[in-house]
């Protein structure tokens, strides 16, 4: 077959490996890594996380950067694959980033966790699965409320807000939906509430009539739905066209996001409340900062921020603070984050618990009649 052919292939391979060499970095900038889904089916949720970081980059640099140096967020695509997520992480780690953001997908976070431990680089992630915290990795910090709290908030909304006794659950068939539904069942059982139906749906299913009709027949007085934006939007529309608006509906984490609200009309939202990841703007405890954040975000991206955009923004601002105080040193940043208490961000208040969770609040919200805006009925905290 020829030594020539073999030789060419080997040379080609070496050349290719050389192309992988990390790009030269300007000395006067600090590069922070972010492994986010930019292409593939997760790109929709990836977009807000990316936008949050972009706005933060702008704001940090506009305020003088990190002690004079500019900050830059280097984003690498994770697609929807765990393997590619690990590739993205390792690529960023190789560039000696002092800090890396991971995506909001629990399974990607779980897959990357061993590498984080090996590399000893502090990371923030937004996957809600408690399984991640159970790994007890001191380098991982969760900047979003975890799914156990989400389920607890859903339980609270049924028990003390809606005051219903017979509940149906419908969850997306993936790690998040399954784990959240399990937790909710436990919480409701402990409160003596009957779960009369549990339905599941696939991501990107198109017809929820089978599930909704089964729920109708079960006599449920309230439905709790753990679903992603697109599925929640469809489900809400189909609920109305099937005439089931008399059954109260609790939408968990797909309630006040603009991308969801765009898909539904006002009448669709009848008798719906939700558990919101973040209530931004005036209603936020950090009102003025939050209002400014929303305004800047809309100006830059033409869409309002949601709970993902805001936590990544806050995360980035926290990292900037860390860099200013302790410099681009991985261990020192890790220590700083581990000890963070009461940082007031645009989403809420961040305090790091022993298991790495930083955000401990969710809000039960309802729609202001006649609008798609929400107001907070009740906040739910986890006890850390």
């Amino acid at each position, binding site marked *: *077959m020829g*030594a020539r052919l073999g030789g060419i292939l080997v040379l080609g391979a070496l050349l290719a490996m050389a192309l992988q060499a990390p790009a030269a970095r300007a000395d006067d900038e600090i590069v922070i890594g972010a492994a986010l889904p930019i292409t593939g089916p997760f790109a929709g949720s990836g977009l807000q996380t990316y936008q949050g970081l972009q706005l933060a980059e702008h704001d940090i640099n506009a305020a003088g950067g990190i002690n004079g140096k500019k900050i830059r967020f280097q984003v690498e695509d994770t697609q929807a694959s765990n393997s590619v997520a690990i590739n993205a992480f390792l690529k960023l780690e190789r560039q000696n980033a002092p800090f890396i953001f991971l995506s909001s997908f629990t399974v990607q976070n779980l897959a990357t*966790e061993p590498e984080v431990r*090996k590399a000893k680089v502090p990371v923030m992630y937004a996957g809600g699965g408690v399984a991640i915290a159970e790994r007890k990795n001191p380098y991982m910090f969760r900047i979003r409320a975890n799914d156990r709290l989400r389920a607890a908030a859903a339980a609270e909304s049924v028990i003390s807000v809606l005051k219903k006794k017979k509940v149906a659950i419908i969850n997306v068939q993936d790690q998040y939906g*399954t784990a959240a539904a399990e937790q909710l069942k436990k919480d409701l059982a402990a409160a003596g509430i009957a779960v009369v139906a549990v339905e599941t749906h696939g991501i990107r299913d198109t017809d929820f009539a089978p599930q909704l009709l089964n729920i109708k027949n079960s006599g449920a007085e309230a439905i709790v739905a753990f679903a992603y934006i697109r599925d929640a939007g469809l489900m809400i529309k189909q609920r109305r066209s099937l005439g089931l608006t008399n059954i109260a509906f609790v939408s968990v984490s797909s309630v006040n996001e603009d991308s969801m609200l765009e898909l539904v009309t006002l009448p669709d939202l009848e008798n719906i409340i939700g558990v919101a990841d973040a209530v931004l703007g005036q209603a936020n405890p950090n009102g003025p900062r939050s209002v400014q954040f929303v305004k800047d975000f809309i100006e830059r991206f033409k869409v309002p921020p949601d709970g993902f955009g805001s936590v990544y923004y806050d995360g980035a601002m926290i990292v900037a603070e860390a860099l200013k105080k302790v410099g681009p040193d991985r261990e020192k940043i890790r220590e700083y984050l581990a000890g963070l208490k009461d940082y007031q961000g645009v989403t809420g208040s961040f305090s790091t618990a022993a298991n790495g969770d930083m955000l401990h609040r969710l809000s039960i919200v309802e729609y202001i009649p006649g609008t798609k805006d929400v107001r907070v009925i009740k906040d739910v905290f986890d006890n850390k």
Partner: protein
Amino acid sequence: MTKRLEHKLGAVILFLALMGGAAFLSDFDLRLAILSILAAISVIGLYFAFGLAGMIHLAQAAFVGIGAYASALAAQQLHVSPWIGLVVGVIAAALAGALLAYPMHRTRSHYLALTTVGFSVSFEVIIRNWTSVTGGYDGLGAIPLLRLDTAMRSELEFFYICVAVLAACVVAAMLLRASPFGRALIAVRDDELAAAASGIDIARLKTKAFILCSAYGGLSGALYAHYGGFISPDDFGLARAIMLLSMLIVGGEFSILGAIVGAFFLTYLPEWLRFIGGGYMAVFGLFMLAVLIVMPKGIVGSLGAWLVPRVARSR
């Protein structure tokens, strides 16, 4: 004679230099190399099923998955060493291959392709939902790693292990190809009617090729499971199966070298293209198309033809 010896010596020295140089590579670079090698092992299997036996096989990732889960579960639940796990993975995948191959042996081209597609998708659904065994969407973590416990970096050590396994796979493949089994496959590929007329039991032959392919896939999967210690259904679905077959076709479906080249090329290409930003996967699609159009025999086939035009191409 001396020239051949020179070439061989040169090749050995080059090989040793590369292996030595690997010690200087970062974990990221080693990971890409490892992933390429693991893919190459699967794709060598496809060389038998598709390159030789002509079956358009879009379910190889499922067999990789079977090998991965079988090995992981054996190591976790039965507490066997990961090395034994590799054997378990291979056997599990081969058995599954046998189960699927027999009913398929009469099916042809597109229908075969679509059958494998259906199997791929069904496999994904089952793995995702059979939570008690596979862990479902959460995936399976804390899988014991396959290492030799030397003083080397973990990633580097595994890289060397993979290189050794790949070498063994290549030698086995070459021996199989030269064997009566291999020659019969080639005869069938060239002219199925004539082969049948000369008494070859085509159905059995194809079944064997399929099982062999599954075994290679299972080995790759088992290695993968004990590489990162974490597997999940995402890695073993239709998209991955399509990618594996593409690796063979892009690399050159008529040779083992093609399988390896294709595996490396399509593993590295998306990473090379990252710098493009948001549209890089579109460029990836274009690249694949370009290679298919411009290099009809795949990279190895076409490069080979361009370099050595006078030598008769033997498969």
